[in-house]
């Protein structure tokens, strides 16, 4: 008996990646603009200055354009768990479904309800109520991210669950463990700050463009003031939570860490690659080819980031496959082959358990259940074939990781300089910085996409770490169907993206609505 065809699994993955990739263009804009427009409106309510209202309304309009397309891609993601990952939906739905439902009930409704007051309520509710609505839109968007990232973090590090051999699925036994997982918090904060970074980059970049064109000067300076602060806070916090992510990944997903660094042979006091190029001739983890053409390392930094100890041993890809090194808890790491054997034992025990129960042999069933539980931690390995299956795409993970880090360190510097000019000098006089701000608009988008590629490609082959590989998770649908929907989605989303981009550019060209008595610029 075979697993699903590679083609079915890969097209299902491609479809999910496509949707998620598009989703993560628009959602970060709303996360970032949500905060920025709420801060701007707060300034309006505090100062009564109509110009702040004008600024808020402009960015709220941009928010609306992105909100629409964000929910369009979001709804597809939600339902794709069912349409394309049917085994997954049953196998872990007992845990995974809950945060999705809570997101709908508690977060998405908040965002969608108060967005209508934000847009249509200027003349219909009080000024303070309007401000509260704008903040609630931001809160709703952020809570949405919270629940979704709890769900995602749980896939990377499954906690608070127990396998039930009768229902053949994992069941939640500790809601709090799922909600309070450190990985979840870190992931949530990291993703939200990356949204702030995107919003801030856009606001500051557009402001710079107006300054270059010498239009809407006051609007531009107000935008740069708020955007600049949000941007700097975001990037500093991205560094902090990024460090947290690296630490958690090294503890929970060492293979991902090894792929991020292209580390095949582990070592003590491992350095972090600051700059490097992988050797395309390296085809397999065990072909003996040097993985690098060149690399520049910061000594011992990887050990420190991963284990808070400059001399800690960081296992490489081959170590993780071969086992035998000492883990943090003092035990010895198992090899892939040992884990595979235990996984197969667990799967067989589950089958035996089911048969024994069906035949009423309860004592036998109890024995099989014991074997199953003893080996369940390795369940997913039983479906893999060779150690190679355990290795994610190293070049993709490596380059996207380093691209993200480089962009974000550059951005700390950029926002630091920008704020200096906004608050201490005059941004109007610094053309070079205006150009830099304009041309930096795409960078946070690229960094965000790269970050998700690291997170999701780096954990292959797992949908649920160690428990459920992708080829076991997908729906049994022939590839032709999925290819068709993939093409439809590609056309739809691309068309929508182009329309969205040109609408935004038109809005930027048009500028904010003139104040009463003000002439159109």
């Amino acid at each position, binding site marked *: 008996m075979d697993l699903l065809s590679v083609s079915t699994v890969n097209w299902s993955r491609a479809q999910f990646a496509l949707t998620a990739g598009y989703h993560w263009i628009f959602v970060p804009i709303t996360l970032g603009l949500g905060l920025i427009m709420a801060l701007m409106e707060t300034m309006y309510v505090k100062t009564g200055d109509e110009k702040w209202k004008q600024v808020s*309304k402009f960015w709220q309009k941009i928010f609306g354009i992105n909100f629409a397309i964000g929910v369009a891609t979001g*709804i597809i993601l*939600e339902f794709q768990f*069912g349409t394309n990952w049917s085994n997954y939906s049953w196998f872990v739905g007992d845990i995974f479904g809950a945060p999705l*439902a809570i997101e709908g009930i508690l977060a998405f409704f908040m965002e969608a309800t108060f967005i209508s007051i934000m847009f249509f309520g200027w003349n219909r509710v009080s000024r303070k109520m309007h401000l509260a609505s704008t903040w609630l839109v931001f809160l709703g968007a952020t809570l949405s991210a919270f629940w979704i990232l709890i769900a995602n973090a749980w896939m990377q590090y499954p906690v608070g669950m127990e396998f039930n051999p009768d229902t053949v699925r994992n*069941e939640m036994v500790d809601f709090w463990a799922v909600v309070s997982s450190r990985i979840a918090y870190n992931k949530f904060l990291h993703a939200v700050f990356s949204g702030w970074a995107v919003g801030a980059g856009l606001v500051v970049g557009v402001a710079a463009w107006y300054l270059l064109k010498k239009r809407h000067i006051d609007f531009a300076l107000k935008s740069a003031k708020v955007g600049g602060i949000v941007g700097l806070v975001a990037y500093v916090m991205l560094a902090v939570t990024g460090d947290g992510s690296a630490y958690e990944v090294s503890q929970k997903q060492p293979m991902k860490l090894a792929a991020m660094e292209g580390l095949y042979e582990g070592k003590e006091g491992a350095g972090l690659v600051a700059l490097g190029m992988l050797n395309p001739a390296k085809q397999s983890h065990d072909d003996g080819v040097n993985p690098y053409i060149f690399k520049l390392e910061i000594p011992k930094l990887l050990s420190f980031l991963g284990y808070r100890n400059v001399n800690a041993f960081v296992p490489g890809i081959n170590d993780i496959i071969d086992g035998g090194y000492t883990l943090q808890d003092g035990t010895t790491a198992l090899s892939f082959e040992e884990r595979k054997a235990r996984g197969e034992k667990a799967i067989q025990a589950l089958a035996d358990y089911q048969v024994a129960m069906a035949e009423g042999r309860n004592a036998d069933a109890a024995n099989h259940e014991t074997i199953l539980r003893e080996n369940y931690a390795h369940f997913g390995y039983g479906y893999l074939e060779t150690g190679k299956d355990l290795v994610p795409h190293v070049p993709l993970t490596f380059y996207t990781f380093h691209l993200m880090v480089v962009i974000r360190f550059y951005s700390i510097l950029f926002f630091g300089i920008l704020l200096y000019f906004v608050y201490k000098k005059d941004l109007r006089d610094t053309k070079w910085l205006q150009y830099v701000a304009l041309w930096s608009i795409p960078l946070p988008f690229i960094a965000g996409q790269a970050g998700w590629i690291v997170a999701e490609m780096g954990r292959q082959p797992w949908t649920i770490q160690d428990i459920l590989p992708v080829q076991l998770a997908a729906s*049994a649908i022939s590839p032709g169907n999925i290819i068709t929907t993939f093409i439809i989605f590609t056309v739809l989303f691309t068309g929508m993206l182009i329309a969205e981009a040109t609408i935004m550019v*038109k*809005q930027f060209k048009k500028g904010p609505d003139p104040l009463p008595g003000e002439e159109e610029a």
Partner: protein
Amino acid sequence: MITYDFLQQYWWFIMSLLGGLLVFLMFVQGGQSMLNSLSKTESEKKLLINALGRKWEYTFTTLVTFGGAFFASFPLFYSTSFGGAYWAWMILLFCFVLQAVSYEFQSKPGNIFGPKTYRAFLFLNGVLATFLLGVVVSSFFTGSEFTVGKGNIAGLGASGFTISQWQNPLHGLELLADVRNLCLGLAVLFLARTLASLFFMSRLDHEVLENRSRKFTLYNGIPFVVFFLIFLIWTLIAEGYAVNPETKEVFMEPMKYLRNFLDMPIVLVFFVLGVVAVLYGIFNTVFNPNFKKGIWFAGAGTVVTVTMLLLVAGYNNTAYYPSSIDLQSSLTLQNSSSSYFTLSAMAIVSLLVPFVVAYIFYAWRALEKKKLNLEDLESDGHAY
């Protein structure tokens, strides 16, 4: 002590209620399906679009919540129906993707495809989403072609490791070949259009559109009643998918759904009340030229009727998502629900729903203190 059985019934009630709310809120889709036929001028069209555009998010969010709540409470339905009736759901979702951008984009400069295209998207969403939802819901009574084997994942199945397997290569499109499914699909489409007509009458400050909407209530109300009655009577006298409470065996029982109504008189009473409210909303609007509040009767009636209909599909030892080719694969509240722990955790979350409903009600009221007219589109500062 709250039993597992109680929680399963409770969650089926919540899902039924969400289903009822969703069908009611699909008046937005109904309105989208008649943007062209109801309006004669561009300004009329704009008013209709903006009246609906201030509500579309509620329908959309309810759909998202419906999906999430179904996933959390009955995950086997999620994996079986979505992963199996792939095309029915995918087409429905495509329509919603199109809808999500259409309001915001259609009148904005630089939208590439022009307002006509976006309005065509709204039309597509209006017709297909309502119709397909009706078709799929009907399959709760007529059955689908799938098998479920939980042991498959451990290699016990004959055809692969997938637990839920759809056995018809059309993946959901075959549901369109069942006349009863078509009847409910058309009933939901015409119901949505009827509700939209009633909504416009209550919401718009525009005499021409109001009068036209009154006529449209009749034109759409009649086919709705006809198709709904065909579906209802057919379903009441047809065989249904019953579950033996002791052995859990699924078997065909003559007039099962009629029996469910008779076994659960409260459900029957509410169902009848719901139907009466819908009919009162429609006919009083048609025959009484001063009556403009039909949407509240027909809307509330829709919520109650659909909720009761879904209760009949799942309560009283009935398989709510039956397999017509392998009865024992049918989904029941017992074999497809989440664990006791998850259902109770989610039940606690559901206690917050009244709070959510309260702020939705507040927002709705805040924006609806007065009827919408063309001047509002100017003065509110954000128009589609």
